[in-house]
């Protein structure tokens, strides 16, 4: 049994403009010691999916199942879920400046997490553990920095504080939501290193949410790509990068700057769709280069793509299986396949 097993997760928010269907049927599993990467543009539903698991999406209509160690997070009563939050499942957010409370000392903020879950711990003991944790995440002179406020830290150091909170109670699952987006590239690499090191040390399961395929390449074991609230492709890391099937994944990979491949970046034309009125059938068809008649009428299921190296490689696309990878030859084959289907 996997540590986390999510099946058929759907989340929607009633708003004055209509119902926003943020997540429309997402299933995945994460195992102990493994890292799952969730990739997608802003508004693709990647953050909502995980925040829903934590019970942080107030006012949402939720369906599906999310078994964490056998217990359904989505059906759990508030108090039991609260006990899990921070202790068994922790979250690291994008912008550490706005995610840390500006008016409390960082040591207090870490200590609070400990004392909320372990009320018998004294303030002094919590402070001592805060200092140890700050040292663990590589903050110099932790015994002095423990009494500083968040604004007295640099961006990277603040994210280290968030990570210290994230690992404080040795959770079994850490969800890092765009953990490096607000940071410089060099600092970003250090933060990812730290996350992966701590994950290995504690054998934690890790979910990394990002729009940055470079981040995923550094940390993930498995990847799924989200588009308009749906999973469009799911595979092991290498399959995603080298044998991608879905045109959206292919487009994403083409839009990543790569020093080894000179030339202009290829962009995906158009903009992400509205989640109030998502396009019918395949949500990507209005932007797809290889659109076929069937794409506008039938919803493609997330099916295996005949990838011999990765039998679990799945994609929600009507293009024939086996058309894998990035490059002019594959694209030509895809164009041919699309043309044939039109005739």
């Amino acid at each position, binding site marked *: 049994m996997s540590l986390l097993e999510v099946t058929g997760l759907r989340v929607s928010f009633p708003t004055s403009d209509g119902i926003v269907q943020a997540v429309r049927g997402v299933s995945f599993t994460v195992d102990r010691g493994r890292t799952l990467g969730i990739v997608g543009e802003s508004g693709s539903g990647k953050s909502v999916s995980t925040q829903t698991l*934590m019970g*942080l999406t107030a006012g949402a209509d939720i369906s599906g199942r999310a078994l964490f160690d056998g217990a359904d997070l989505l059906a759990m009563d508030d108090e039991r879920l*609260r*006990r*899990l*939050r*921070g*202790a068994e499942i*922790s*979250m690291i*957010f994008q*912008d550490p400046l*706005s*995610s*840390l*409370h*500006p*008016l*409390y000392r960082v040591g207090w903020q870490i200590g*609070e*997490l400990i004392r*909320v*879950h372990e009320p018998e711990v004294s303030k002094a003991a919590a402070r001592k553990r805060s200092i140890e944790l700050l040292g663990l995440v590589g903050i110099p002179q932790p015994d002095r920095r423990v009494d500083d*406020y968040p*604004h007295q830290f640099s961006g990277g150091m603040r994210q280290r504080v*968030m990570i210290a*909170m994230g690992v404080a109670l040795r959770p079994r699952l850490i969800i890092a939501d765009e953990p490096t987006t607000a940071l410089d590239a060099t600092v970003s690499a250090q933060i990812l290193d730290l996350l992966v090191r701590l994950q290995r040390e504690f054998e934690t399961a890790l979910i990394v949410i990002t729009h940055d395929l470079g981040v995923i390449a550094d940390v993930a074991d498995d990847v799924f790509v989200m588009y308009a609230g749906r999973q469009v492709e799911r595979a092991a890391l290498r399959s995603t990068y080298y044998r991608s099937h879905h045109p959206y994944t292919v487009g994403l990979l083409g839009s990543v700057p790569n020093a080894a491949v000179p030339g202009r970046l290829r962009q995906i034309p158009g903009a992400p769709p509205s989640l109030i009125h998502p396009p019918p059938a395949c949500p990507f068809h209005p932007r797809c280069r290889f659109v076929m008649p069937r794409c506008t009428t039938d919803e493609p299921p997330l099916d295996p793509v005949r990838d011999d190296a990765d039998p679990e490689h799945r994609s929600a696309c009507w293009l024939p299986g086996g058309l894998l990878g990035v490059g002019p030859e594959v694209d030509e084959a895809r164009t041919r396949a699309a043309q044939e289907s039109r005739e």
Partner: protein
Amino acid sequence: MIRFLIRRVVFGVFVLWLVSLGTFLLFFVVPGDPARSIAGRQATPETIALIRERLGLDEPLAVQYWTFLKNLFRGDLGYSYYNNQPVTALIAERIGPTASLVIGGALLWLVIGVGVGILSATHARSLLDRVTAGFVVAGISMPTFVVGLMLLFVFNYLLSTVLGITFFPGGQYTPLEEDPADWLRHMILPWITLCTVQAAIYTRLTRGSLLEVLGEDYIRTARAKGDGNRRVVVVHGLRAALTPVVTQLGVDVGYMLGGVVVTESVFGLGGVGQAALQAIVNLDRPVVMGVVLLAAFFVVLASIVVDIAYSFLDPRVRLS
């Protein structure tokens, strides 16, 4: 911190000086002659001239002002034209009712305003929130004297005069040190009057501030840490949301200590505001000067206190 204080005090003294100069000059612009109003309608020109001389009104303006400043530095604000009472003694006597009204009222409106504001924010868009919003609009739009008169009508006319039951006497003031229970009985209605508008304002302020804070990322972090709902709202939310409330409180209390004219007058408390009103009607320049300077002093003091409080409330703010 020390340098900040010195700078603010120097600046405050400068402001007080400007206020004194402005008020002083204003007296020679407004129509009316204090000597004539003291002497009465039938006074002969000689009598009026004599009074002018005794009050020093015949001297050049600059000399009069200089004399005023010199006396001020000795702590002498002069004597009332009207009844010859020393102005300092008059203020000392009148500050009690005003301070009782403002401080007691502030406690009451703070408790009600912040309390209801929290409920409103945590139940945003619920029925409770909507009902509260209605009361807030009513409270803010109700003129103070209307509230005061309505209370007097109910408690003093209907209950007291008609039914013969007196819960809260309307009018007059019993000093706290003389009879605390009677003081309380006399202050209840004025407090409620002062509170109606203020509690409404503070409810709206707290609700708005807390709602904004509850949408912050660090509130989501607190929930993700496993904090209970109450802890999230109070320890994380309210702590951040109260900063603008404290600022407003400092300004309001400072401003009101200089006299709450309407409420004091409706209940005949005999506070600073009422004294100011009488003095203006009587063209009683020394009293007006004294009261205006007192009000300005409280406002200046409040702004310094608020700035210092702010630096304690928010570690990102440094006094400099």
